[in-house]
């Protein structure tokens, strides 16, 4: 039991934080649809998207049990590693000021402008339904993948699912209460943390999949988290443009 603790808590945390980021992004677009095209298409598109995701989970979930553990760890671990490194790379470049930070207010304004200028509203607004459906399916697919990836390989599908459900409840509750994008959520910092966690899990599972016996067993996952956090910190410092003053001084 004690051996599972080191990756049970990070699994729930990774699923919660990653899902939180995805749900915040989906909420921004659904809110934009609601404000510009009406709440009926926004909620219908969301419901249809959730239905499709539930169908996918119902189909894929039982199929996972049929895959041998070694193959599951290798495939899921490798995909999780690529997925985590994509987030981590972008988060490092954003933190270093190389690419602009993600801004939910700007995303909301851009989506509102695009939807508001597109045609007239009708009783059943296809554009509104399709926009809400698409964002829920795309962001939801990422959540489904994250939950499966961080949960399935370690037999922790239920705790990972609970982490994602907790994030969904938090975002829906905040969105319903505020009726505006959750710009206060420190999305860029969260993406950095999630990138570190997913890269560490991905390395751990992919390593197990190719036959590596990690020293310290499950505890090695925590060492990998620390290792990727240090790599991210070092990369941010290395990527940051040097201040002009320092360059002039020859520092």
């Amino acid at each position, binding site marked *: 039991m004690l051996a599972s603790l080191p990756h049970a808590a990070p699994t729930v945390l990774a699923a919660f934080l990653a899902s939180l980021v995805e749900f915040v992004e989906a909420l921004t677009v659904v809110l934009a649809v609601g404000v510009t095209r009406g709440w009926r298409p926004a909620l219908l598109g969301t419901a249809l998207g959730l239905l499709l995701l539930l169908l996918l989970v119902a189909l894929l979930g039982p199929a996972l049990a049929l895959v041998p553990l070694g193959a599951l760890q290798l495939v899921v671990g490798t995909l999780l*590693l*690529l997925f985590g490194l994509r987030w981590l790379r972008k988060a*490092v470049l954003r933190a270093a000021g*190389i690419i602009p930070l993600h801004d939910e207010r700007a995303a909301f304004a851009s989506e509102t402008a695009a939807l508001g200028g597109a045609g007239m509203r009708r009783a059943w607004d296809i554009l509104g339904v399709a926009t809400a459906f698409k964002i829920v399916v795309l962001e939801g697919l990422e959540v489904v993948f994250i939950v499966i990836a961080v949960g399935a390989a370690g037999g922790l599908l239920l705790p990972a699912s609970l982490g994602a459900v907790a994030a969904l409840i938090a975002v829906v509750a905040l969105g319903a209460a505020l009726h505006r994008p959750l710009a206060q959520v420190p999305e860029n910092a969260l993406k950095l943390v999630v990138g570190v966690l997913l890269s560490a899990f991905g390395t751990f599972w992919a*390593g197990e999949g190719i036959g590596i016996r990690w020293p310290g067993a499950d505890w090695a996952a925590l060492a990998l988290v620390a290792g990727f956090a240090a790599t991210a910190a070092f990369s941010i410092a*290395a*990527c940051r*443009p040097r201040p002009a003053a320092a360059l002039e001084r020859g520092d």
Partner: protein
Amino acid sequence: MRALAALLKELAGLFVDDGSLALAVLVWLALVALLDQLASAGWDGAVLFLGIAALLGENTRRAARRR
């Protein structure tokens, strides 16, 4: 057909942002797997991590220099 292609592109985009980093990581994983088959040792995990960390560090530095 175009919608399917767009969906596949979106799905690939979930895992690959910079193709060279993704490819390098896959090659490194394969090399460590080969190493593990030839001579399994306690330091395989450290080698796997250090390689991935070096690839990420080099890739972000290169991206920063390009912009």
